[in-house]
């Protein structure tokens, strides 16, 4: 147990805050992501012209990529096998090359079917308080009594 870096279930209280973790999705990150995703380029995620044609001021981060980086923030905290459920609503277009602040707040803790579960509200915000992506996450943590 001593080699575990993440939290134990008993460490968690209602209202605990995780983060915010700050990161930036650069143009290059988004292009790499779209290449792997198989989305034909240029597209509204990588091209200024195509973004404007879609009514956007500039290229945006794909929702699938926003989910990936929010998941990463959670697994960095809880552990690589911990995330059981991530349910997100894409509220506003997420911009490239600007700080994205990812945070979570614990809303419930419970033991269910032998698992120690922690439920959180999760949020991706911009520097000026823009609420880009919101939702909930369900995380399973080990007990320090096991």
């Amino acid at each position, binding site marked *: 147990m001593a080699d575990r870096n993440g939290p134990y279930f008993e460490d968690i209280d209602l209202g605990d805050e995780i983060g915010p973790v700050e990161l930036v999705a650069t143009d290059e990150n988004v292009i790499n992501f779209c290449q792997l995703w198989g989305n034909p380029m240029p597209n509204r995620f990588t091209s200024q012209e195509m973004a404007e044609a879609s009514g956007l001021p500039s290229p945006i981060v794909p*929702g699938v990529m926003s989910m*990936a980086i929010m998941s*990463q923030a959670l697994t960095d905290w809880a552990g*690589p096998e911990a995330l059981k459920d991530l349910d997100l609503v*894409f509220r506003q277009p997420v911009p490239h090359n600007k700080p994205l602040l990812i945070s979570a707040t614990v809303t419930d803790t419970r033991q269910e079917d032998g698992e120690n579960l922690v439920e959180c509200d999760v949020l991706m915000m911009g520097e000026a308080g823009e609420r880009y992506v919101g939702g909930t996450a369900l995380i399973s943590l080990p007990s320090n009594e096991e």
Partner: protein
Amino acid sequence: MTMELEYNRELYGVEHEAGPFAITADVIQTFNRSIGETNPMYTDAATAQAAGYNGVLAPPTLVTMLVRNVELPDIELKFGIMRFHAGQRVQSRAPIVAGDSLMASSHLKEVYPKTGRSGTMVFTVWETTFTNQDGVVVADVQESYASRE
């Protein structure tokens, strides 16, 4: 008053399949690089093997990249002119490990209207279940698309 939606309800209960998708260590590594993922359970085979896995673990949202490979039909919704990706959910059911081969099966889950401050939108939700080479369900992904007038 209930809003009567016009779309192809015969699509309920129909599965649309795609795959197999080979989840190689290279695929996982490329995914890791694109989001700056460095957790050794996702990047280092020796670390993952020491934890009891046959290879590196796939980060839990990697399967969401595969959903677009399923050819989904037009539901012929008679509402709205704009359509956008409104939400996404991934539920991890079992570990996905380098070397796995996944099949995807998608179906129309629900279509429903919602009225808020910006007016009425209609949400179309598709659910995709991923199953590995041993027949184990490893993840469910829901994608929600909103249509707006």
